[in-house]
């Protein structure tokens, strides 16, 4: 039994293969945060005055706040004066086509497996690539414009569609919502903006690849997606970051608004650099993602596969405001080595006949800690609300931990809230069985883990499902069953 433990421990030590650094001439602010920095940032982005005021209001509120300490993670204190709040690759003029993009940048995307030109030509996926703080290239704009879909960097939306931005920005995640959301509201640099007009089914999946490159740069994206009445959209978000010894902060805010009969499907594959196998370096991923199912019969599905980051603190949530609205959360969170994840969801039932489903799969390997934290809240107004929660943990080896923190608050007696939870280990018998069928120990672990995640993977769009499976294999390499 000892021999299998060491064997599987050896299997985990695979290197992070997205950890290269792109050498670009960057326009970067000196580290530090104050009202001047925010004013300068807003000016850099040619923002209208309302935006600067909005940011300053968030900043002033942030100064009064302290970081949350309730999550089951250990965070070294972050010195916010040591972070640079703006970094952009230097480019002289606006780009007319991908041909004008710095070839090194395009190369970076190629290494990440998303050659933009190819995607534009072949894949039928519209990509809004965020490189550090600015959006580098947005493809497929023309095709989307034909049907009235707006898909652009949020910085552009602030200039081009200020009324939409004013109406919806902060309407789901208010500036003062939490410490990281307030910080993001003050200093967010870029992100994506999506508006799907009434009755439109977005003709393709929209996708954003974020990438953190410059050292000591915090990345603060802000994403806002509005699905107007009876519209549909599927949005894919993928993330990777280079290897660095110091920790990098990633504090994003994502807001989704679904109006009457609208549907939004938001899928994430998060593979930020997790730190090395001794726990050095890695991304701090503190993200606020929330959807408001504002309209009747609206529906939002969050699907996430989280394999990266040193620390993940993330609870994609749904506020089910509209009657008959539906919220779903499908999650795979894998932690290995010294990674820590505290993730889950909140389903807030406000409207009548609202329904929510939570399927969470947590996998811990190495010395990692993985927590599910979920809140199901049924307000007095939410007659006949229904929730089903299933929360499964899988342990790979015996030095890791899984924790479940379900919170349920029900104020409406007709509500029906169900919770199921399991914890299991990959058994030596399962592993041996697979090996007896010719699979290496590594492939066996990956097979068993993939099986464990099946209910979530089947919710992912096809291309993402394939990527997610491969990612699990890579992330588990070197992990051992003891």
């Amino acid at each position, binding site marked *: *039994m000892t021999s299998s433990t060491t064997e599987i421990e050896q299997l985990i030590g695979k290197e992070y293969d997205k950890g290269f650094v792109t050498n670009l001439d960057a326009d970067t602010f000196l580290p530090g945060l104050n009202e001047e920095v925010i004013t300068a940032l807003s000016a850099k982005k040619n923002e209208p005055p309302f935006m600067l005021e909005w940011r300053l209001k968030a900043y002033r509120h942030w100064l009064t706040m302290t970081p949350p300490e309730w999550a089951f993670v250990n965070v070294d204190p972050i010195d916010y004066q040591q972070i640079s709040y703006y970094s952009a690759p230097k480019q002289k003029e606006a780009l007319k086509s991908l041909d004008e993009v710095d070839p090194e940048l395009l190369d970076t995307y190629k290494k990440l497996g998303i050659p933009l030109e190819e995607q534009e030509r072949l894949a039928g996926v519209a990509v809004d690539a965020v490189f550090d703080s600015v959006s580098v290239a947005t493809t497929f704009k023309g095709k989307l414009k034909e049907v009235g879909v707006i898909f652009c960097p949020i910085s552009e939306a602030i200039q081009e569609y200020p009324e939409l931005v004013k109406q919806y920005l902060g309407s789901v995640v208010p500036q003062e919502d939490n410490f990281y959301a307030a910080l993001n509201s003050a200093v967010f640099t870029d992100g994506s903006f999506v508006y799907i007009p009434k009755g439109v089914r977005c003709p393709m999946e929209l996708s954003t690849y974020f990438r953190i490159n410059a050292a000591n740069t915090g990345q603060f994206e802000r994403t806002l997606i509005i699905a107007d009445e009876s519209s549909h959209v599927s949005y894919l978000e993928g993330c990777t970051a280079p290897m660095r010894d110091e920790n990098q902060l990633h504090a994003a805010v994502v807001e989704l608004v679904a109006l009457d009969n609208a549907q939004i499907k938001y899928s994430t594959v998060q593979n930020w650099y997790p730190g090395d196998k001794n726990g050095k370096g890695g991304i701090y991923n503190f993200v606020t993602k929330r959807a408001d199912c504002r309209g009747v019969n609206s529906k939002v599905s969050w699907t996430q596969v989280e394999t990266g980051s040193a620390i993940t603190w993330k609870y994609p949530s749904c506020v089910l405001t509209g009657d008959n609205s539906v919220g779903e959360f499908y999650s795979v969170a894998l932690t290995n080595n010294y990674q820590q994840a505290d993730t889950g969801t909140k389903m807030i039932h406000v409207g009548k006949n609202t329904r929510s489903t939570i399927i969470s799969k947590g996998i811990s390997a190495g010395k990692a800690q993985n927590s599910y934290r979920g809140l199901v809240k049924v307000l007095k107004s939410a007659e006949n609300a229904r929730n089903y929660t299933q929360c499964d943990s899988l342990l790979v080896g015996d030095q890791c931990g899984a924790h479940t923190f379900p919170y349920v608050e029900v104020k409406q007696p007709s509500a029906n809230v169900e919770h199921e939870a399991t914890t299991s280990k990959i058994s030596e018998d399962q592993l041996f069985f697979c*090996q007896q*069928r*010719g699979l290496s120990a590594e492939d066996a672990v990956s*097979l068993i883990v993939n*099986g464990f995640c*099946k209910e979530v993977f089947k919710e992912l769009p096809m291309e993402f499902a394939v990527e997610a499976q491969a990612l699990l294999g890579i992330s588990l390499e070197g992990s051992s069953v003891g």
Partner: protein
Amino acid sequence: MLSIKDLQVNIGDKSILKGISLNINPGEVHAIMGPNGSGKSTLSHVLAGKDGYTITGGSIEIEGQDLAEMAPEIRAREGLFLAFQYPVEIPGVSNIYLLKAALNAVRQHQGLSEVDALDFLTLVKEKIKLLGMDEKFLYRSVNQGFSGGEKKRNEILQMAIMEPKMCILDETDSGLDIDALQIVAAGVNSLRSENRSFLMITHYQRLLDYIVPDVVHVLADGRIVKTGGPELALELEQKGYGWIGQEE
């Protein structure tokens, strides 16, 4: 094919196998019978390379190669197959996925390309029919919610797909009703060939009515205490295992 010489095995400090010798030639079918706890599963696990056993003496070889030197998956790819007494469940992994992964592992080891998707489907459907299983089983999670008999049939299905040369069946007959036993036996018999050998581990003689062995060994307390032809199995059935012990 398989050569076991004076094999001694411990679990921890406890001696389980106390010197077993056995030689199986290509094409032969041997049966090992013995009471519960005599070490039958231990032998099968050691041959397949499971952790937790210490070989304290003797040797095990397949076609002249030292088995003890090989990782379990290498033994499998070399053609040593174990049908488990207690097959495990793998939630979320479809049977057909496992079958394909297993076949490709063997093919890759033999320097062949991955099996073509269509050829594979044809092959699987042919084999599953042979075992009287519904095609629905292909898309269910491995052994999950299967009855005892279905699990055993599933083991033989895996064997039929991987086409091993040395097949070890650990109490494949237990938990089968008579119809299932006949189907499984027919499946095994259809795989018999001059290049393929079998080691049938069983507690009861009835399996051997359908798969007639060339040689029968009786295992008691970690030792082979008697070896003979098929008639030995019948004798055991009539007189019980107590008879062996008394004779010693």
